[in-house]
């Protein structure tokens, strides 16, 4: 292996009969426009045949699956796979996706840790009344048995961050066969993870990587029994009525500070929630609601975030995400358009930190809203961009709805009760917990297994 980043990496499709190089290949470039990989794009005919082969494949026994996932975790974190050392791989993810290198490295560790606990994680979702096997002695007098809702699970992966790839291997643990369509912005992580799973013992006809162009993407969901799709509000709308697809839409995570706490004691948590992990995640904070005057908090946030240097993503000290200049300019233009009528504290004149090689850092933006109901509070951007709004008891829960994570920094237990009961808030963190906090075995947007499994009654003589 040459020094990281000097070769163009071949990313084959990983079909049911092994790696498959197509004639139709997509050039994957880094944030400066330099060619870094060639991704084989398969036609729908290949998708159809692969899913058929997966459907016909035998499933190894549960403990064997868990063992293979464990071995894959080790390989994913430490082995040379597809010619890439862990360092070469993390460097590529960083250069192509624009994610800060330290974030990529931490995520690799986190993915491996989560895979090692996949069995624990999925079992947390099992209803307490249900057993795993039909021949559990409890079924002799009648018992719920926890079983998969289908055979093949398809994933339209996200490209914003490698982290979400720690989720779908749970489907393998549960006995599904899995096909993953990678994002063109970050095909490296699923390619590496699936290569690791195969090296660890999963058959080629058990877990597959099927890169496709946009128009062929739907073939995966058509062919599979169940699907997971990451996307924006359009994706959520498109699949809202489809019970076989679980859309993962906007996060719109939020922080709430009530009058009985002093924001100064929690500034680290707020800054971290906005910009931690590169600020590109659905669990990064989009809006902060303050009971009282938001201006002092805005000033403090702006001061802290303004001090972060603009660095290329592969710099170990990089904090903010990087994109190609064209993409970054489009994002900036969109931000400036949406921000009109708000009070800018940081990034009001623009957020770009040009790096001179055709790429640009997307620096943080802090804007103050004059009402908790301002529409901007729902504008989620793929970089550290926070809207700070005043909040009052009169406004109540309404502006806090539609949140993947809500960190409530408050001593008001009745308010916490209301937030926990609100159906459109997925997770509630009370006190000093950044919105991106996650733990294996705890639901992220519900348990994935809630979607993949069902209970059926078995009774026998």
């Amino acid at each position, binding site marked *: 292996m040459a020094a990281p980043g000097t070769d163009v990496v071949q990313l084959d499709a990983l079909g049911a009969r092994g790696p498959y190089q197509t*004639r139709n290949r997509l050039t994957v470039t880094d944030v400066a426009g330099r060619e870094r990989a060639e991704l084989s794009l398969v036609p729908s*005919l*290949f998708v159809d045949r692969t899913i058929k082969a997966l459907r016909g494949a035998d499933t190894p026994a549960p403990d064997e699956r868990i063992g293979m996932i464990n071995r894959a975790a080790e390989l994913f974190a430490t082995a040379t796979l597809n010619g890439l050392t862990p360092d070469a791989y993390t460097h590529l993810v960083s250069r192509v996706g624009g994610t800060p290198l330290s974030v990529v490295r931490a995520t690799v560790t986190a993915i491996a840790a989560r895979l090692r606990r996949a069995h624990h994680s999925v079992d947390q979702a099992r209803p307490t009344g249900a057993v795993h096997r039909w021949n559990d002695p409890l079924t002799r007098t009648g018992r719920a048995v926890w079983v998969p809702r289908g055979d093949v699970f398809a994933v339209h992966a*996200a490209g914003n961050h490698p982290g979400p790839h720690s989720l779908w291997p749970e489907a393998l643990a549960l006995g599904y066969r899995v096909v993953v369509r990678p994002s063109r912005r970050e095909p490296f992580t699923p390619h590496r993870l699936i290569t690791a799973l195969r090296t660890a013992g999963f058959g080629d006809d058990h877990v597959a990587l099927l890169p496709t162009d*946009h128009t062929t993407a739907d073939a995966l969901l058509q062919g599979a029994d169940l699907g997971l799709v990451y996307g*924006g509000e359009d994706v959520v709308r498109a699949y809202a009525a489809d019970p076989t697809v679980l859309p993962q839409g906007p996060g719109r995570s939020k922080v709430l500070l009530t009058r009985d706490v002093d924001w100064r004691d929690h500034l680290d948590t707020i800054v971290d929630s906005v910009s931690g992990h590169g600020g590109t995640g659905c669990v990064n904070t989009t809006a902060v609601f303050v009971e009282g005057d938001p201006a002092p908090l805005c000033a403090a946030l702006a001061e802290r975030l303004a001090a972060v240097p603009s660095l290329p993503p592969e710099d170990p000290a990089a904090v903010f995400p990087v994109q190609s200049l064209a993409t970054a300019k489009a*994002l900036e233009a969109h931000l400036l358009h949406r921000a009109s009528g708000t009070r800018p504290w940081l990034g009001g004149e623009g957020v770009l930190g040009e790096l001179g090689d055709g790429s640009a850092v997307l620096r943080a933006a802090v804007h103050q809203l004059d009402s908790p109901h301002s529409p901007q509070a729902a504008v989620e951007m*793929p970089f550290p961009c926070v809207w700070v709004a005043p909040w009052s008891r009169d406004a109540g829960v309404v502006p806090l709805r539609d949140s993947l994570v809500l960190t409530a920094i408050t001593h008001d237990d009745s308010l916490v009760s209301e937030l926990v009961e609100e159906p459109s808030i997925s997770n509630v963190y009370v006190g000093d917990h950044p919105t991106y906090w996650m733990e294996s075995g705890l639901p992220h947007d519900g348990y994935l297994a809630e979607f993949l499994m069902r209970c059926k009654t078995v009774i026998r003589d």
Partner: protein
Amino acid sequence: MPRATTEILDLPLDVRPEPDDLIRAAMQWHFGAETGSPFWLERAKNLPFDPLTDIKTHDDLTLFPNVAAELRDVPAQDLIPRGYGPSPDIVGVFESGGTTGAPKRVVLLRDWLDRMLHWSNLNLDAHGFPRGTDWLGIVPTGPHIVGEYFRRSAATYGRHGFTLDLDPRWVKKLIAAGDRAAAGAYAEHLIDQAAFVLRTQDIGVLTVTPPLLERIAHRDDLVDLVNKKVRAIRWGGTQLDPDSRHLYKTDIFPDTVLCGNYGSTMILGFGGERPGLPDDAGCVFDPYSPYVTFVVVDPQTLRPVGYGERGRVLVHHVSKSFFLPSNLERDVATRIEPLPGQAGDAVADITPVETFENEAVIEGVY
């Protein structure tokens, strides 16, 4: 009308005219007051040149404006050259797909049909199609000329041609409305009907569009039937990407001949796949030159792009029965060197005019 003119337009089926000879004869015919169609005689009044004297070579055809859109409104009767006399031998009136607005109409005359079939059957020979077998066509019928060519090909090259109703306009409407489920149900309905024929009849040749071939490949029982009975598959109507082509030829239907057509209603026919291409390449299509010719052009300048470069496909049809020059198709292709003696270009790797994907979804993190 000099005798030589009609002779060149009426050459025996196995003799092809020199391209420029054909053009000059066709100008005399289509723009001669006694022989031209009412449509062209009227249209010629608004041309900035005189076709009778100013159009001498194949290259000169690009001087003509693209009048294809006018075929949406013109009475079909006005398209028939007067030189055919009071009772021309008409096979039928056919319409374009209707992808963009109202359909365009053309008139298919017997002498051109015979000529086109003669050439197309020679191409089937070159690909090793079996003669004398029954054919199944899963292709648009009704006003679509492809259905007519299917019947006539089956009757002249094979034995019986089995058809079904296929209305591509309804499918396009369903897809445009985002109703994928209904579009899929219609496609499955077509395959169900085809399955009855495949199971019970001695089908040696299957003519089909690539999306419907893919639905056949999805059903294991039909794949087995095709592999057992069908010795050649002729595809057309939409494009088959090189990776799918390779899968069919090496994996799914390894012992079946696979041969593509690239055609359009406006050329009253189609180009055929060049025989002998490798399994892992894209398809190259040669037209029935000099009657039908392709030029791969820059859509802005209408000048040819270089060999190996991509451009829009400009088509010309020049025969005794019909004249339609400079029609810019909606397809993009790679320009390929023609076979020796052929006018214009061969084309490869055809795709619809590029539509832009949602490049960067601005809001949201994914």
